[in-house]
């Protein structure tokens, strides 16, 4: 199977591998996995005071397409607002990396991961607001 240059580049030189502090209030963590292939993917975002994603990290145990998909997403979301980051579609990822049809599910996983990270961040913000309200009462 022929893989695209972009895919191979992301696989061989993955961007933003690593972890952010899961316990930190400004970090959202998305943890997802594909049952059929046993892959696990962790994607984290750190949101600045200005509402922009200032850092993103990932750790993926899976095939090359899963690694490339998550690497690409971390690159794309940096500097975006979470609302913008949320609009990333798996089809954009698959198209950019020219994923073969059997590997489309890897891009779906990456989309799920960023969505989960954003949901986690939002949940933390909501929690913070509740605490603030409680403190004000």
């Amino acid at each position: 199977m022929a893989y695209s240059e972009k895919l191979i580049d992301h696989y061989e030189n993955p961007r933003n591998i690593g972890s952010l502090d899961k316990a930190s209030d400004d970090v959202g963590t998305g943890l997802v996995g594909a049952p059929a292939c046993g892959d696990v993917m962790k994607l984290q975002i750190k949101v600045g005071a200005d509402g922009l994603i200032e850092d993103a990290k990932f750790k993926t145990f899976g095939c090359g397409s899963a690694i490339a998909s998550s690497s690409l997403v971390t690159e794309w979301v940096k500097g975006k607002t979470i609302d913008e980051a949320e609009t990333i579609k798996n089809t954009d990822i698959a198209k950019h990396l020219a994923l073969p049809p059997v590997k489309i599910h890897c891009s779906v996983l990456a989309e799920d991961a960023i969505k989960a990270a954003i949901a986690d961040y939002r949940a933390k913000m909501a929690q913070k607001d509740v605490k603030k309200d409680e403190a004000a009462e």
Partner: protein
Amino acid sequence: MDHFARLGLPAALDLDAGTLDKAYFAGQRQWHPDRFVAKPPEERAKASTEAAALNDAYRTLKNPLDRAVYLAALKGVDLPGDGKTIDDPDLLMEAMEAREELEEAGTVRAVDALAAKVRGDFDKALKGLGSLFLANDKPAIRKALLRLRYLDKFGEEARARRTNIERGTG
């Protein structure tokens, strides 16, 4: 006809390897192409279809995890398909931590220790399936099968990691 019926076995999780082999070899003899060379084409075709189905049944039932997944599907357990993320955060956390430990394991001995632990978890979870099937607890069966798939995959990854270390490429 389901795989169990094809081999004349009760549809159950527990299956003795010797009993399965015996049933398979009997079926193989029955549908062996040598016995059909002089027969009309439609009978030959039937024999070859039966032999292929028999092989398929045997392969699936021989592997304990494949057998459990197959039986669960027969019982109407809704197993998540490909391309959908798992909705079990504890399992994902467990899988992530295990894979990180494996990545950090730098010696064959360390890899073997991790693999042995996970193998133990796998065997335990597989044993636990029996009572879940008896109780027909579908959500619990689904959850256990998902975990078993991950533990099984870990075993594969551990073998690959071991080979890499031995070759000095890890």
